[in-house]
């Protein structure tokens, strides 16, 4: 289906042929020809953001919530540099997005032209791959390849830089041909190692599944297979922040999230297990704590599509390189054909131990007095929204950890959070992207007031496109997580960790033409949340909460999983000098 057309038209045609229905972007001089083509068609909806960082996070939210790649269109120079944070965020969390940037015309590249930046140079370390297209004839092929690279193997962000003269020039358009690419990552795992893992599953006395974002990225089929495997074996399962929802939080094998602010029972089980089955997680430092004390007694299996994840941090006994869905399918087949065996008595004893740990009830808190505890606000939000078709985004900080602890996710792709990069300002634009993917769903961004302010300009986008995103701000007038660390390891010297001169969020909402709700009283919280849910339009919910609440449980830096802090007890001096250099 080779056809002659301009480069600008090719961009739009390639997006249509890739099944793209939504593009997040911001126009500028170097992408005007493409915007002219966007103007003259109706197949693709363009969402005008208020800042390019917002466009990338919105595309990430769209991708995480729909499983389809997100697409961004921005101009050269500042348009491209503003996209860098979002690209890095998507790279760290393995989110498939395609960023198209305008560039100054080829004959001006290198001359320090107006709005020129070395975009492929700047974004090389923060993309999975990028391209500068200097010939119009190559443009369609590169865009199709960009979709292929972004969505195959370990997903990630890609960028295509398109000079303005390439957009104007005529060239030959070619349709998508996925087999044309040499990039064909291995999907099937090594059968011999899978058999070894089956044998380990049959004999394990204290097994645990430790799952991550790789299960979600592998698609809904992988989550389904994981559920089948967990139910059939009866083994306990915990997950990283990125993997929440792959196994339902309401399932009886669920231990809750693990890691630095994970649940006591999950971390203790990780520490004491004899077989750890890592499925699509990467032994991040938020998970492992002190490496040399990480799960010292266990045999470790690791299923990951990225060979560089194997043995990067933790030595693995049974490495299986492949797509989670493919490997789980083979694993289940082999395990079933060998008679579905597990060490039932030992596993029952293991569950007895886990139930004892659960009695610690590490998430307990007391809601007393007239001030709302952040945990209480999330507990009520969970109770009042869990039966809705609900999607949750978060910003970064204490509220993010509390949301992971107190909200339950029964399905994949329902939880959008910046895990690897920890990008404050992620959640609000992400919620816009999620709402675009699911127009009728209830989309809530659980935020802190400081994070939320970082991309608050996107209120304009939400109002313009009538996206009824709910901004649930836990307002403690503090950079809560920074404040918590200053309390724990900097002698309570709260250097620049409070939010002064905050806006009146209700008036702010109204200034944008949206609805604002203020609530600082536990008695009226339920009614206020119901008012937020029932309002048909974007809402800023200013929830005034306890200002000095700390987030527990917590594994202090440089400590092992079985050295958790559970509450307000003695927290001073628990992080030693070696631990304090860690972040």
């Amino acid at each position, binding site marked *: 289906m080779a056809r002659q057309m301009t480069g600008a038209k090719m961009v739009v045609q390639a997006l249509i042929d890739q099944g793209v229905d939504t593009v997040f972007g911001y126009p500028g001089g170097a992408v005007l020809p493409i915007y002219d083509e966007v103007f003259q068609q109706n197949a693709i909806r363009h969402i005008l953001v208020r800042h390019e960082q917002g466009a990338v996070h919105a595309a990430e939210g769209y991708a995480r919530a729909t499983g389809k790649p997100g697409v961004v269109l921005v101009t050269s120079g500042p348009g491209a540099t503003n996209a860098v944070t979002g690209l890095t965020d998507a790279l760290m969390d393995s989110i498939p997005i395609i960023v198209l940037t305008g560039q100054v015309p080829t004959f001006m590249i290198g001359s320090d032209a107006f709005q020129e930046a070395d975009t*492929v*140079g700047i974004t*090389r*370390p923060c993309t*999975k*791959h990028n391209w*500068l297209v200097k010939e119009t004839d190559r443009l369609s092929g590169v865009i199709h390849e960009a979709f292929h*690279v972004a969505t195959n*193997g*370990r997903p990630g962000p890609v960028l295509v830089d398109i000079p303005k003269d390439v957009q104007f020039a005529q060239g030959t358009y070619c349709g998508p041909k996925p087999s044309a690419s*040499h*990039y064909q990552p*291995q999907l099937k795992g*090594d059968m011999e*190692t899978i058999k070894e893992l089956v044998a380990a599953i049959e004999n394990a006395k204290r097994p645990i599944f430790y799952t991550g974002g790789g299960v979600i990225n592998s698609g809904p089929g992988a989550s389904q297979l994981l559920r089948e495997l967990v139910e059939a074996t009866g083994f306990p399962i915990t997950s990283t922040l990125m993997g929440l929802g792959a196994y339902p939080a309401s399932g009886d094998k669920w231990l809750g999230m693990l890691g630095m602010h994970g649940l006591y029972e999950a971390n203790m089980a990780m520490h004491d297990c004899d077989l750890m089955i890592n499925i699509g997680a990467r032994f991040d430092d938020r998970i492992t704590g002190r490496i040399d004390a990480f799960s010292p007694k266990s045999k470790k299996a690791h299923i990951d599509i*990225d*060979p*560089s994840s*194997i*043995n*990067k941090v933790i*030595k*693995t*006994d049974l*490495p299986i*390189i492949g797509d989670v869905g493919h490997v789980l399918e083979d694993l289940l087949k082999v395990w079933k054909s060998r008679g579905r065996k597990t060490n039932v008595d030992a596993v029952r004893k293991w569950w007895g131990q886990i139930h004892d740990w659960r009695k610690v009830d590490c998430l307990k808190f007391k809601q007393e007095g007239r001030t709302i505890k952040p945990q209480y606000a999330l507990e009520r939000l969970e109770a009042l929204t869990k039966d809705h078709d609900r999607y949750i985004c978060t910003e970064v900080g204490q509220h993010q950890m509390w949301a992971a602890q107190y909200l339950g996710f029964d399905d994949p792709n329902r939880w959008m959070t910046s895990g690897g990069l920890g990008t404050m300002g992620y959640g609000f634009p992400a919620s816009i992207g999620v709402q675009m993917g699911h127009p009728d769903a209830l989309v809530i961004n659980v935020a802190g007031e400081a994070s939320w302010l970082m991309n608050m300009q996107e209120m304009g986008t939400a109002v313009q496109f009538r996206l009824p995103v709910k901004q649930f701000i836990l307002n403690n007038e503090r950079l809560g997580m920074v404040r918590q660390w200053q309390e724990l390891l900097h002698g309570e010297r709260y250097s620049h960790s409070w939010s002064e001169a905050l806006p009146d969020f209700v008036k702010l909402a109204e200034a944008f033409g949206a609805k604002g709700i203020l609530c600082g009283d536990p008695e009226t919280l339920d009614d206020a949340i119901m008012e937020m849910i029932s309002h048909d339009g974007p809402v800023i919910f200013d929830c005034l909460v306890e200002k000095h609440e700390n987030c527990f449980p917590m594994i202090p830096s440089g400590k092992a999983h079985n050295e958790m802090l559970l509450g307000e007890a003695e927290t001073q001096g628990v992080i030693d000098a070696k631990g304090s250099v860690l972040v």
Partner: protein
Amino acid sequence: MSALKIKKGSTSHSAYNLRPTFSDAIERHTLAVLVENEPGVLARVIGLFSGRGYNIDSLTVAEVDHTGHLSRITIVTSGTPQVIEQIKAQLGRIVSVHEVHDLTVEGPSVERELAMFKVAGQGDKRVEALRLADIFRANVVDSTLESFTFEITGNPEKIDAFAELMRPLGLIEVARTGVAALPRGET
């Protein structure tokens, strides 16, 4: 040669499936990386090494397949077995990289480097320099009444040895290409 007991003839794929014991011993490995010859590909490889804190002892690159637009990058690097495994895996995930071979563990290989030495001197020193160059099979590619420029090819150790000998004889400038390497045998 390596702490990893890797079977002769292992490919880059099988190398991932090995289970290295984490050792602290620093090893020197020669990697052959076949890449698409496109703009920025060398920056991707070098950026990976600098961004992740790996060592480059030497690096050579040139297009070796003009019709397929493939370049061969030969990298000599050093690190613990775990770091070497990481380097290979990280190189393998660069989209423009077609193949990664660890010549140090995949069987015997031959390594060569070309170097040029400018040695200035008179009298006995000049004669001695020429005599040593003959022993090392170095060629004279330029000469004046008070200097020689030698060209020498060999493995890096031979070139190091020649440099040591030339130093007291008036060595004033050195240029080295870095290592190019191929596996021995038919394949």
